[in-house]
């Protein structure tokens, strides 16, 4: 299976997990992002994800490379779904295997934070009372140079 993938099909968690299994892995940390119904008082009916697909896959791969630099024994796989998703559908599955558990947790957390910074994917919330493209979820970041940290070669 492709280790870094944007897909319009439902995500199979076990496929992502299988692709990081390794005889020297003692720990696999899996992060699954799912569509939540309530955000504060707002009720989501469904979501739409759109991506700049070839670039998004390259950026996911970059995250894998960054993880391998920080945690050399780590193996990473990430699949992100696009298109229309219903409540409880899986938007993203990240799996990282490492020899020891500490690194697996750290690396999988790093991956999801980094996705929210550098991977060109956008979410449109369809609420019961309107719709909205969600941008800059962290709320505070601006990019005067035109790019997030550490992405220009």
């Amino acid at each position: 299976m492709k280790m870094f993938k944007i897909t319009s099909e439902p995500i199979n968690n076990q496929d992502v997990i299988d692709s990081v299994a390794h005889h020297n892995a003692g720990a696999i940390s899996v992060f699954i992002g799912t569509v939540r119904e309530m955000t504060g008082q707002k009720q989501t009916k469904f979501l739409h994800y759109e991506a700049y697909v070839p670039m998004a896959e390259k950026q996911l791969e970059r995250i894998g490379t960054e993880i391998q630099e920080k945690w050399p024994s780590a193996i990473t796989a990430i699949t992100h779904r696009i298109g229309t998703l219903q409540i409880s559908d899986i938007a993203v599955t990240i799996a990282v295997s490492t020899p020891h558990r500490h690194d697996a947790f750290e690396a999988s957390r790093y991956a999801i934070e980094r996705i929210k910074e550098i991977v060109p994917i956008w979410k449109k919330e369809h609420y019961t009372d309107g719709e909205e493209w969600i941008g800059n979820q962290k709320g505070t970041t601006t990019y005067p140079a035109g790019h997030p940290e550490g992405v220009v070669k």
Partner: protein
Amino acid sequence: MINILLFADLAQQAKTERISIEVHSPLNVEEVRTLLQNEVGKLSGIENALLAVNEEYVELTDQVNDGDTVAFIPPVSGG
């Protein structure tokens, strides 16, 4: 010819996801952004967009060559 890609809110404002512009001299990303808005009208929030040329992030001052694809990437919200 330079290919421009727009996404999410920017595509919605421009009413297109893709536009090509003819250029007759070397220019940088900032100049492409100006030419783009000349074509499709002012795009609110485009100054917060990340910039990519040929699927790699670049700076506003980086050069764009004939045949390149320039993408204006609104703040991302995957995950």
